[in-house]
């Protein structure tokens, strides 16, 4: 099997890329819908009762991490590469 050609077919074809994106969004929507019907064995935290909470938390956490990390980095932590020289 030529792995390179196989990968190229999937990464370079714009039509396939569009198709993948559509499937990806559909799966995300489906996950939230399914969450309404999944049986909870134990309800420990308040948010365990909210369907789709994990989706929201995952997304908000991601955005926060990107924004906050980069903000701290640019304001303070990130230095040019010859900083210690």
């Amino acid at each position: 099997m030529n792995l390179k050609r196989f990968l190229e077919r999937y990464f370079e074809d714009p039509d396939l890329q569009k198709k993948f994106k559509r499937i990806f969004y559909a799966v995300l929507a489906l996950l939230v819908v399914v969450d309404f019907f999944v049986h909870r064995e134990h309800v420990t935290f308040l948010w365990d009762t909210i369907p789709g909470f994990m989706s929201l938390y995952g997304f908000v956490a991601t955005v926060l991490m990107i924004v906050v990390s980069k903000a701290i980095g640019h304001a303070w932590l990130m230095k040019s590469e010859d900083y210690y020289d």
Partner: protein
Amino acid sequence: MIEWIHPAFFFFVGAAILPFVKGRGRSALLLSIPVLSFLSLLFASQGIHGAIPFIGQKLIFGRVDKLSMVFGYAFTIIAFIGMVYALHVQESGEHIVALLYAGSALGVIFAGDLFSLFLFWEIMAFSSVFLIWFKGGESSNAAGMRYLLVHIFGGLCLLGGIVIHASSGGTAFSSLPHTGLGPTLILIGFLLNAAVPPLHAWLADAYPEATVTGIVFLSVFTTKTAVYVLVRGFPGMEILIIMGAIMAVYGIVYAMLENDTRRLLAYHIISQVGYMVVGVGIGTDLALNGAVAFAFTNILYKALLLMGMSSVLFMTGKRKATELGGLYRTMPWTFLLFMIGGFSISGVPLFSGFISKSMVVSAAVETHQSWAFLLLTLASAGTLLSTTLKLPYAVFLGEDKKIPATDPPDNMLYGMGLAAFICILLGLWPDLLYRLLPYPVEYHPYTGEHLVGSLQILGFTALGFVLFLNKMRPENTISLDIDWFYRKATAGFLWLANRLLGVS
């Protein structure tokens, strides 16, 4: 019939005879050492072996129980994989220090008393530093020296703690008190090797300066022996929950900023060990099993990820994400195997991270640790974001920088392939690992609740990545960390001392 052979024995003897063996014989020797050691574990009976009286105390070299055995298996398996990956290395010295390092890590795992533990703890520090120094060059030499000094400090804390503790509590190594000067110093020594902030900077400073193959060994033994001694010595110490949760997020923040491919992964080691420290802090049977299972799976996928980025470094000579791109065309197998490591570390179902990470998280839920749960879940999202999406996107996909390269030599691919195989195997067959865990616990990772919850986190993190792709681009910078204090402050101290002494 010999009752028990210490699994480290093969590593130390192998290191001693390696200089006299050449060619194919050398490869055969390097591969047979971890195999023999693994076999000796299979035939070891539980109990205390190798007890030697020593100045009024007892040195115990072989405590064999489920906890030491599971780490023994993990260490011998990864030593084999690391040796396969390093077979092409001509420098015998590098193999010898790797063998000493792996052997002394096994020595720590099976040590039943604090003095023999300390002995192997120090051999680990002094052998591992050569895996950094063998890279050569000014930055590796300096980073190795900083690494060594930090570990000497940690070792001294440990020794001081052991001596103080021994006068009242004896030298047996089992669960230690949570208060008192002696145990506190011992704990500091352990936490330093586990890279718990603020005692963590040595790891991200030194590991990326190690040799292409040395970093594989480094990523395993120091932090995971530290997890082992924490599980053994300080289970249920609550402050570790807070420290571990902060640690998990701390590593993520720095990984977001990092441009050096292997340093980014090194910050993820810190984040990952955070989960294990949380597990130790919670201290229930499920949590401790989770910490051990997490260590086991982490050893394999973390080594796999570092082997991937080391292969990129080896074939292209480049270590910065900003200088790499489009490599999937020239290094397709490296890309594929790296992604298996990426799926494993992010806890994608059917890969090994899913079956271990969920244990620690479930233990946090069971004990109502809402903050630990939220921080660990955030760290999960961050792991997917930078290890599995940002890094491979920048290195293998993204803009094609037309870097001439090929997949690395076969032995390196086989090393990665073996690690990838076990990552998938454990994901599909978690019971294989669960039956090795120290406590009897019934745990099922593949419930509808876990699956849908994890997939939501992963899916919506990926959505965030897709939407903010521009913000995720690596930048050509380095990041200040705690090592600033000893890198800048010592320079300042020298400047001041020179001024006071009148030396210009």
